[in-house]
């Protein structure tokens, strides 16, 4: 599964940008590849952009089908591994990420954690590289501001 090895990371990042849950993102990713392997679907055009579209659709299905589940534990499903001692920051970061507009969030996830260039992000998302770069720039600024605001509200009041 060359495609899986090459693209699983980026596709997972893409799925995480939609579902905010590692388990659901991984489910969506596996679903797409399983169908591909079973021969249920055939890729006629660019495989990369197809995969991203398929993972996006599968992720949206995950949201729909898991909306009835009850999070008894109130657990947050991490999709980021945090450095030692920064687990809470990691969760806040995840939360801040999901406060971003979807387009910006996608590009940030793909560029930073999917380790994709803007050209690759653009090809995967069906947008121009310039659009990808500007979404990234705006998204990053917004994320930084949002993250700092959260941090201030969290830690500032005790000062």
């Amino acid at each position: 599964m060359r495609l899986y090895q090459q693209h699983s990371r980026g596709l997972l990042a893409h799925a995480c940008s939609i579902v905010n849950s590692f388990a659901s993102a991984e489910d969506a990713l596996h679903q797409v590849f399983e169908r591909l392997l079973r021969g249920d679907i055939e890729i006629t055009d660019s495989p990369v952009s197809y995969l991203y579209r398929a993972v996006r659709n599968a992720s949206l299905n995950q949201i729909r089908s898991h909306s009835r589940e009850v999070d008894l534990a109130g657990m947050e499903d991490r999709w980021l591994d945090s450095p030692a001692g920064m687990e809470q920051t990691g969760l806040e970061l995840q939360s801040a990420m999901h406060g971003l507009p979807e387009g910006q969030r996608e590009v940030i996830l793909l560029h930073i954690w999917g380790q994709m260039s803007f050209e690759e992000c653009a090809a995967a998302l069906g947008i121009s590289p310039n659009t990808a770069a500007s979404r990234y720039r705006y998204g990053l600024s917004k994320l930084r501001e949002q993250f700092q605001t959260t941090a201030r509200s969290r830690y500032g009041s005790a000062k």
Partner: protein
Amino acid sequence: MDRQNDEFEAFLKQFQLRTPGPLPKEGTAQSPRPRRRPLQWILAAAAVVAVVLLSSALVRMFEGTRGPYAKVEVAGTNSLYKTGQTIPVGEVVRSNDAEGVVLALEDGSHIEMRSQSALALESAADGIRVRLNNGSIIVSAAKQQTGHLYVQTKNVLVSVVGTVFFVNAESTGTSVAVVEGEVHVQDGASLKKLHPGEQTASDTSVPLRPVREAISWSRNALAYAALLPPPPSVAAQIQTGPGLVPFSQDPASLIRDGEKLAAAGRYHEAADLFQKALSLNRLSSIASFRLGEVRYQLGDFNNALQSFRDSLIGDLDPKWIEVWAHINIGKIYDIREQRDRAIPEYQRAISTGDDFHMAQGVAKGFLAAPFRQAQGVPSPSPPEPQPNANPDSPGKKIFYRACTTCHSAEPAAKTNFSTKAEYAALVNREINKGTEISTAEVPVLVDYLWENFGKVPRDIPVQRDAPIQRK
């Protein structure tokens, strides 16, 4: 992109996206790499979970029967199966659709399969065997008089004697827990009997999660949770009766139970309940405050401090939390001999004007004379200075004053960044969190961190006035 964004990008890159596991084996020609499962494995979809309710009627029905074992009751729109389709013996059922599949047995029993699950029904000598290849299932069955229902995974064989249990298997092993009744778990030569609320794993690397979490994906999660007994530690203290809210769904009762445990000195168990309450209501100031108290009692001052701070940004219900949170924060600073930080906290406590439980007198007392920690409560040991740290360097003073207030020096010692910019970003982040570091102190502190913890060849003298490296 401006410098702040560059630094923020460097900060973001400290975090790593978790690695996706290999594709499920049924579909893959080869596995890309071994799967790594995190602690929160139970919410990951590839785990195998089965809850089984079984009756003898069910077993009898299958004994000597050659007919269909099950029918598809619910199938997702993209499922391989159609509602009403029969599933004969030995056929592997795969719930690849995101919505999963529900199988109905002829006596009214049900097997609920999570997405990405695969099982086959087989005849056993004294009943029926569900061979669970992968994925998650929950089985509800009617009562039985004789025979068994088995769930076979690659690691263990679980046999149902009583009523409700679940099996959870993943690539590294299998865990089993009981919701109601009794199950026998055969793991190689060892046989374990499990009762409600108990669980076991075939391998120590398989993390065990509370049963409620394990079944939370089910359509009937709340009903199953209600079947579960409360944790034994508090079971005796929880009143039962009609209309009882499921244990994990009521923050107020969790807090009350936690308070009882804390009063009995069972701080760890109390902390678990307060955390659970917080997971249900993050803004509960009282849960944060109580968590702070038990952490304080456990000598976990870093987290206690955080909890008291959290209590101040919650719903502040009841109101006295504000005054007492400030007093407790001040006490922790006093324990750490950070008098300059303790005093403002006592002043804030006094400024609230709240005299609940003589808070004003206590705050004024500690304002006049520092709080002294009672004997027996452990204090966090100060970090060992780095060998190449100048004992009197201004950077070190700033570091120990500002950076070890909320945590030990260990996180900084582990950073090992390869550029000074990353330390600048780190300091910037800490300032944003509220750490008191003046603008003039920033470069001194960054230099100190870089020289002492940075990944730099030690035989090359570090330029103190070197410009901050850009990415």
